[in-house]
């Protein structure tokens, strides 16, 4: 286990280094940050001085090296646009994204799994057929369209829910939360649905397919023959085996949720990390972009590691490979 973690940490560091270097190569094509920092009629001399001051005249490799050395010490530099340290900005925005992703992920699981089970157990029911069709829509309609439709229906036509922002948030010092106020909770509903919809339909279809597969397996047939009640059969034996691949996919998708949050946050003016990133792209705010990409790659690696660990816990066969078989 220990060796496994060490290996993962080294992998994580490598992944982040690669992401940072790709990011730096990309930034060269994003344009000149100076054009956003100085007035349109700034002189050539002003521009040169500014470039020199910001270290933009150095070769890309030198800039990259400086970024890595500073980043290793936890210093991601100063945002060009906001005049504030990047780490502060990211820390400030993280709670918004985390809460949104948390709610969306819970929603996707809480609805996706039961619906998947239902459609698997009643494959020919009209409700199952209907759900299948709707889930196809959920997978194929782009999320920003769903978001704008949700706003149109629930904000503009019905006037029930706010169309933008996080509502009133409560500051706990190290975390700002929207969970403690009515307006904060109301503001969460639409963005969470928009973000969850794709994942939910994905999980539903996955659970359905896996469950149908498992229900055809020999051990289920044996269990059935032995007269085990259907309820126990479905939820104890079949479901457990269904969930292992679902867990893997969901773990991977959780990283995807954070990435997809960029679109949701842009549509709903949700002041999270994704929104910060989009603005940084528009402004060619290189330090913010680099730090965000490195952070997201770190989150991906952490989630994947956790999923692998959980996999070990959930599937006895994996443990058996490493520890000598007992009994049998």
């Amino acid at each position, binding site marked *: 286990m220990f060796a496994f973690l060490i290996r993962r940490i080294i992998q994580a560091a490598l992944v982040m280094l690669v992401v940072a270097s790709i990011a730096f190569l990309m930034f060269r094509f994003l344009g000149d940050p100076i054009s956003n920092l100085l007035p349109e009629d700034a*002189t050539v*001399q002003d521009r040169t001085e500014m470039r020199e001051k910001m270290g933009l005249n150095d070769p890309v490799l030198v800039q990259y090296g400086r970024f890595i050395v500073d980043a290793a010490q936890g210093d991601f530099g100063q945002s060009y646009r906001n005049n504030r340290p990047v780490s502060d900005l990211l820390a400030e925005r993280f709670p918004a994204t985390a809460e949104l992703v948390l709610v969306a992920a819970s929603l996707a699981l809480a609805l996706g799994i039961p619906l998947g089970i239902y459609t698997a157990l009643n494959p020919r029911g009209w409700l199952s057929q209907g759900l299948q069709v709707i889930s196809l829509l959920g997978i194929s309609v782009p999320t920003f369209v769903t978001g704008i439709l949700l706003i149109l229906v629930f904000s503009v036509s019905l006037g029930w829910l706010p*169309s933008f922002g996080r509502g009133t948030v409560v500051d706990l010092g190290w975390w700002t939360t929207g969970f403690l106020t009515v307006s904060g909770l109301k503001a969460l509903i639409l963005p969470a649905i928009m973000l969850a919809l794709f994942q939910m339909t994905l999980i539903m279809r996955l659970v359905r397919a896996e469950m149908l597969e498992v229900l055809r397996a020999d051990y289920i047939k044996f269990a059935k023959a032995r007269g085990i009640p259907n309820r126990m059969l479905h939820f104890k034996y079949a479901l457990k085996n269904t969930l292992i691949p679902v867990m893997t996919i969901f773990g991977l998708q959780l990283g995807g949720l954070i990435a997809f949050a960029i679109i949701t946050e842009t549509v709903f003016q949700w002041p999270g990390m994704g929104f910060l990133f989009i603005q940084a792209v528009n402004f060619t705010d290189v330090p913010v972009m680099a730090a965000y990409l490195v952070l997201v790659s770190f989150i991906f690696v952490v989630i994947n590691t956790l999923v692998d660990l959980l996999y070990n816990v959930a599937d006895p066969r994996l443990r058996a490979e490493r520890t000598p078989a007992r009994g049998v």
Partner: protein
Amino acid sequence: MTPRNLLFTATSALALACAGGAQAETFRLGTNGDLYGLDPHSMTDSFTVSFLNHVYEALVRYDADLKIEPALATSWEQIDETTVRYTLREGIKFHDGQDFSAEDVVASVKRAAHEDSPIRGNIAGLVDAKMVDEMTVDLMLDGPNPLLNNFLTNVLIFDSSWLEEHDALDPIDAQKGEEGYTTSNANGTGPFRFESRTPDAQTVLTINSGWWDEPQHNLTRIELNPINSDATRVAAMLSGELDMIFPSPLQDAKRIESTDGMHVLEAPGLRAIMMGINMSDKSNNPNQDGNPLQKTEVRQALVHAISYDLLRDKIMRGKSRNLGGLVAPQVPGFDEGVDAIPAYDPELAKKMLADAGYPEGFSLNMNCPNDRYVNDAAICQALAAMFARVGVKADLTAETKAIHFERARANETDMFMLGWATLPMLDGYSVLSAMLHTPGGQMGTWNPGGYSNPEVDRLTEAVATELDAEKRHEMMVEAFRIADDEVAWLPLHAQPLSWAARDAVKIPQTADDKPRLWLARIE
């Protein structure tokens, strides 16, 4: 942050008490981007500076008709060619209770003109500030400057002791890697005081009941809600969550107009949209030898290939104002004669091209931004099609502004789009010095195409120091006429401003596209 309800109750109660029972009015403004920060000396973003103008004030300000009027200074006089003396208004207090005096002006001017200051370029020529007495300040210039007051509208005044207390007398140095106190705190003399801010979510101002001026507004609180997505901003307006949005997307104007209780405010603004022209020896188009655009006759022919009315009616939905010259009517230097729109006549254009030696037309590269001006890429597509009708093949590239302007500035194209509002100067000299003067030093910074005419250069330099307004105007018009005759640039139109508001909101729509909420009322 403490729960907002509590703060809101407290501030409204306070405001109520001060306003003597008048109704508390909150103005909820939706914009397409957030403030960069709270320090007006730390960036040149015009929206940020204009919003901070509710909190901070300058020695002079523009009224709703964009004429200079006294603000923190009551009067000024030219003492000699390089010195202007300002008399300050008595009895003004900053939001934290400190008295306003000459010391504050000196500290603020020095801060803005500091060599690390990003806004230094906006007050070029301002060398020093000296305190004469408690209520009098001398500003030293490097030469006569007719535009000093225009510049000063943007030099917002800080409290010097407040700056000193928070170690902020020097401008924020982005390279130090530390956060400036003034980025997240504010203390001015303006009609509203800063209350709270969550970046990209909300910035709140409350009324300054001790403001020196007679308030024309009836607001007690301003909430700035940045909503970058056009669709969401319009939705928030339609659902009644906002009192006003700015800008309001052109394509949604009908939807907003057809909604009860709200309307669109539209007017042509200051920003002139135009095409810059490569006049070097070589075309940037690989299929073109030499550079046909270098010939004045060729450029004059192209003017007749453009249907201004079609651009206005089809691309700009009738909301723009055709421009024959390089400045909008509100800008000093504008002249009716120069502004005359050339006739649309593709046959004439073809003939003129043939006479100039290009009967088969020619090829050029055209570059446009696709995220900077209203319908920018669509305008260029239409232009390319119009040029095609007279045999000129334009290879169009539309890309993001950060790349577009870099390319244009390096003269890597033959024709590029540029919009120029002449702000913060608000004067034709801005165009003359940056876009028409031969490039070199402080001049011609936006003349990458290399247009050069000694007479225009001479006039521009004379305009820079001429203090007689009438003479100055004549010289500007003369220079613009020459540039117009030689087609130094291809002017297209004044870009429309588009705001949308509830019917209850009364606000003057100023041509510089800066909402002045201290002139707004909710009825």
